[in-house]
């Protein structure tokens, strides 16, 4: 992981300046420009990374050592698998099937689509999930003649909550898992139980705010019941292949520690296997086209954003500034593990509701690692890692800009003629986010700290 092994490089900063200050200035500038969203975040992160090298805080080898290729490989591998799988229509199938299971009752559909979103988000990235679920939601609500806003609002919340439950559900978890060698099972055992409680607790206010008022005529419900979900499956062969590979990949994650392989290897191998199965019968030229398309679906902006961030964070870690910061935080919390855990949980949640949780978590990981000696070694830090994961993932629900998935749904909703404004969303979502973090606090305290 970044910061953990940047080689034997000793900074030789230009003009003999203090590496601590130079790296701090580059770091703050990079993050400040990222927050303004004036320039694409991947460009900013890569420029910041370059400056860390040009000023002599890092050399190229130390920078490359700072990049966590396990995180990148896991992200890219899963993106390829999902890009191929989505073509077979299985996600629409599940959404329609679930809507019909509740006999197309408006509240039942809201409930089911929220749960489906959470389930998909636990295994796919949140943006992909909402890209798949939001259009079906709009179709169903159009047929029911009900306002889609409550449905899309709830799906935003559940995509972020569901993503909290697993190693692969949300980028912060991928980063934490990779940095601290926590595996898929660790995440499920430690986070999934509380995620289920938070989901149940979030549904109550959503029912009181929106659910009670949802009405649809029998005729409208009949239209939804007439949907034939089997027709949504556009390619049964691809469906079998995709689900087979996805199942094997998840099994691989579960058995990763037995197999002694990292998640990136499993995801990339799964992607290659699915590419092979999908392309085996095709002619060479068509194969090139299909493989090009599948790789084109990888979000390269996100991948390069990660590369740049890892290097920027390696720079400040190398200069020693994170150790100083960790020391200061522990002074404030009186070297108390419970106080530190709660501080991390709440600060992560509030920060992640305003800024991207990826740079935040990238910085927090080496910072928390630096607390190890003072708090009793790496094992004692476990509650802090769960606090960081819960805070960073759940915090995304606080505002419409809190997570990429929120912005994707808001954009889609607006194009469909149902704008999601910042303040109305904030007024409903922020209290619900605080509720989820409060529940998470009680959980972390009683499970790990009491």
């Amino acid at each position, binding site marked *: 992981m970044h910061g953990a092994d940047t080689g034997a490089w000793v900074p030789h900063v230009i003009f003999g300046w203090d590496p601590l200050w130079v790296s701090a200035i580059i770091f703050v500038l990079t993050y400040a420009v990222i927050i303004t969203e004036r320039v694409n975040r991947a460009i900013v992160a890569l420029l910041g990374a370059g400056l860390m090298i040009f000023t002599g805080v890092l050399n190229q080898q130390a920078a490359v050592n700072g990049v966590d290729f396990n995180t990148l490989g896991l992200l890219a591998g899963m993106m390829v698998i999902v890009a191929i799988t989505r073509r077979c*229509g299985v996600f*629409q199938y599940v959404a*329609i099937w679930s809507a019909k299971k509740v006999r197309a009752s408006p509240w039942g559909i809201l409930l089911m689509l929220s749960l489906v979103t959470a389930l998909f988000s636990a295994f796919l990235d949140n943006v992909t999930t909402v*890209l798949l679920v939001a*259009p*079906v939601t*709009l*179709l169903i609500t*159009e*047929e029911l003649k009900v306002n889609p806003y409550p449905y899309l609002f709830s799906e935003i919340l559940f995509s972020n909550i569901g993503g909290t439950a697993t190693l692969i559900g949300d980028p912060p978890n991928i980063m934490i898992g990779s940095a601290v060698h926590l595996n898929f099972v660790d995440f499920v055992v430690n986070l999934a139980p509380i995620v289920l409680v938070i989901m149940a607790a979030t549904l109550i206010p959503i029912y009181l705010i929106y659910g009670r008022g949802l009405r649809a005529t029998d005729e409208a419900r009949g*239209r939804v019941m*007439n*949907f*034939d*979900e*089997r*027709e*949504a499956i*556009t390619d049964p062969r691809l469906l079998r292949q995709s689900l087979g590979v996805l199942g094997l990949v998840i099994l691989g994650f579960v058995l990763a520690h037995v197999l002694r392989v990292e998640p990136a290897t499993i995801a990339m191998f799964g992607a290659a296997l699915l590419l092979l199965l999908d392309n085996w019968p095709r002619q060479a030229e068509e194969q090139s086209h299909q493989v090009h398309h599948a790789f084109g679906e990888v979000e390269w902006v996100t991948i390069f954003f990660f590369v740049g961030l890892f290097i920027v964070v390696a720079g400040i870690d190398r200069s020693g500034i994170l150790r100083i910061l960790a020391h200061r935080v522990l002074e404030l919390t009186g070297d108390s593990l419970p106080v530190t855990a709660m501080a991390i949980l709440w600060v992560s949640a509030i920060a992640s509701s305003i800024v991207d949780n990826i740079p935040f978590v990238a910085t927090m990981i080496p910072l928390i690692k630096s607390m190890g000696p003072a708090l009793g070694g790496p094992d004692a830090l476990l509650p802090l890692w769960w606090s960081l994961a819960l805070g960073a993932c759940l915090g995304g629900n606080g505002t419409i800009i809190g997570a990429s998935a929120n912005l994707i749904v808001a*954009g*889609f909703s*607006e*194009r*469909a*003629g149902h*704008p999601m404004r910042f303040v109305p969303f904030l007024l409903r979502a922020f209290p619900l986010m605080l509720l989820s973090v409060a529940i998470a606090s009680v959980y972390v305290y009683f499970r790990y700290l009491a």
Partner: protein
Amino acid sequence: MTVELLMNPTPPTLRADETVAHALHLLLARRHRVLPVVDPEGRFVGMFGVHHLLESLLPRAATVPGGLTDLTYVRDDLKDLRARVREVGTRTVGAYLEGRAEAAKGAGGGEADDAPALLRPGMPLLETLLLLYRTRSSLPVVDEASGRLLGVVFYWEVFGKLARKG
């Protein structure tokens, strides 16, 4: 030689306050795919055509950018579609175009993806033909300063006009 060579200076037009039902009647009667829409002062408002009517019959979930790519599993019957035609028919053409523009603007997408290309007076002939080729549609000629509709280059009239002038 410029766009004026190919332009029909007295095209049939729709007014923004006319209903979609009236627009449909005119499109069918004149066998045009699109017609220009103008306000009472003769300023160009937009192009309205068969594409918009088709769009209005489909669920928004399928026509919005990033929406569904197929509707194989939806079983709407003829009765539903007729009801939708009647419902859309009562709206005004202006309100319809405005709603689409608002949705596009609100989503930060700038102009709608199918916003009509405009021809300007004096536009060279080949550039005009290139735009017709790319858009595959009849195009309005609009005065930049006043926004007034000067005429329309109809897709089907191009060859007739070229032959006549030759």
